[in-house]
């Protein structure tokens, strides 16, 4: 726990200093890494911890992107637009969660896959609001500077990681993991599974909403295809799996590795790098189901200490 905090503080310090050390392209690469970390942690919260695999989290990203862009155009400051985007995504997640979280296994995955498409079609067909396939172009005058976006996304990524860390160590996290292991048995030992799942789902929708808005400010142009992006769903899944689902650092590591691999491969193998992603996905699922973090040697907690604690207590009891 303490070592996690230390590592987190180290990474955060590095990330805070980064803009002073790199040029703006490198900064924009880092910005995307941070965005991916935030998204991966969100996905981790619902799918990594409860085992309900969402193939449609991009819908919250898309909703956030459109909310952010439209509000910005309407003259709302960027930070308020971002907050509103997060709120709207969260508000949307509540009914969606109520409806879909009763479905198990592939049904849930398919329902959310469909939901993403519904989101995309809505953005396409509601021309009056979204300008349809024209997309929304934002002018630089309205946009926050790159560094500001960077720090905002750093905040999101840190918040997401902190949040996952807090949940992991909490009673709530324990309940979520119990749901993943055996939902029925969890219910039977007093876990209100419905409430927990919905809470996790709603919480996991909030950050993609904010990230979507910040993405729109960074990219300056969005259209339905580029924000309700099925490939984004794949990336969230792959990052978390690659790193290790249900862990604190897995998504961080996974997002960094994935973006690193992309940076290294897209220039060399333009069309191939997505195929390589697919290969990676299969290999990880088949041979490293617990992700890269599982490679670090699992040192069992010193058994002696625990049993001593146990025995001491035993001695104290009459």
């Amino acid at each position, binding site marked *: 726990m303490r070592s996690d905090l230390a590592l987190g503080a180290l990474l955060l310090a590095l990330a805070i200093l980064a803009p002073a050390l790199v040029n703006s392209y490198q900064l924009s690469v880092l910005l995307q890494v941070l965005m991916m970390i935030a998204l991966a942690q969100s996905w981790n919260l619902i799918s990594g911890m409860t085992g309900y695999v969402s193939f449609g989290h991009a819908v919250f990203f898309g909703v956030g992107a459109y909310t952010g862009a439209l509000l910005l155009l309407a003259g709302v400051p960027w930070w308020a637009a971002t907050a509103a985007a997060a709120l709207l995504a969260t508000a949307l997640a509540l009914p969606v969660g109520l409806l879909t979280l009763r*479905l198990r296994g592939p049904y849930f995955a398919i329902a959310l896959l469909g939901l993403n498409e519904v989101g995309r*079609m809505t953005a396409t067909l509601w021309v009056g609001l979204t300008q349809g396939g024209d997309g929304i172009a934002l002018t630089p005058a309205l946009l926050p500077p790159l560094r500001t976006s960077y720090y905002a996304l750093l905040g999101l990524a840190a918040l997401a990681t902190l949040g996952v860390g807090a949940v992991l160590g909490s009673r709530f996290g324990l309940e979520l993991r119990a749901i993943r292991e055996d939902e029925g048995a969890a219910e039977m030992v007093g876990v209100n599974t419905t409430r927990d799942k919905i809470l996790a789902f709603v919480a996991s929708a909030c950050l993609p909403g904010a990230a979507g808005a910040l993405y729109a400010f960074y990219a300056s142009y969005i259209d339905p295809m580029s924000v309700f992006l099925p490939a984004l769903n794949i990336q969230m899944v792959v990052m978390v799996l690659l790193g290790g689902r249900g862990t604190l650092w897995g998504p961080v590591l996974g997002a960094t590795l994935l973006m690193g691999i992309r940076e290294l491969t897209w220039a060399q193998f333009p069309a191939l790098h997505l195929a390589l992603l697919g290969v990676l996905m299969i290999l990880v699922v088949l041979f490293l189901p617990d992700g890269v973090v599982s490679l670090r040697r699992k040192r069992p907690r010193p058994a002696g200490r625990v049993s001593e604690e146990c025995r001491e207590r035993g001695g104290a009891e009459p």
Partner: protein
Amino acid sequence: MDLLQPGVLFQLAVGGLLAGALYALLACGLNLVFGVMRVINLAHAELMMIGAFIAWLAWRYAGLHPLLALPLAMLLLYGLGLVLQRLLIERIVEREELTSLLVTYGLSIILVNLGLLVFSADFRAVPTLQGAFYLEGLDLVISKPRAVAGAVSVVLTLAVYAFLRYSRTGKAIRGVSEHPEVAMICGIDVARIRGITFGLAAAMAGAAGVMLSTIYSFSPDTGADFILKCFAVMIIGGMGNFLGALLGGLLLGLAEALVGGVLSTQWAEAVAYLLLVLIVRPTGLLGQADAL
């Protein structure tokens, strides 16, 4: 309004049913695999695209008519299906559903992007079947390629159904689908049957691809739209229910055509997605929703 004239609606309905037959052929294979091994093959539509490109290559470089390329494509895809089953699917059949979703998703990304690498994102077509049948008395036009594709799809789907229903191997497939353990003690090699099933489904996808190549322009990433439609079809017809998928396919085609006619083509595309979300109806699919 002129669009709601009976003649127009009839015309739309016929076109929709023909398109729906193609969905049915594709979805039946997906459903078959799901029924036998509880694996949702997210790469199913990519197998279809392989079929379409086989038809295109055969036509472009050997001048082969798509209807002649059909058996070739089915055979090649059957083989590919066997190989994929042996290499990938057999390893994940008994693992949690997430695993199979992810592995087949990975496979689909690989196939799409290799396709883009080899064939580029250019749209191709195999314009060999041309023209239409004009039924003047009914004031009805039936596109020839669509009619052929629709007919071939229905015939193949029914043929596979008959195969499952009456042949020895088909019965073995149904047996494995219902009770794998009992099938085993009847002397059925379950792994082999799974291979045949996957091969068969791949061949059906390949056939759908060949038919698709005669109707639509396509590129390696065309499959993505179809897999979602397949899910919609499975949900209408019932997961794992073969004839249900046939019916579901026809219904989806019909619904798309009518919505396309009355509203717009954009809305027609949304039909399938809206149906996908139907999965969340309160009782859940197959009434399994609240079972703990």
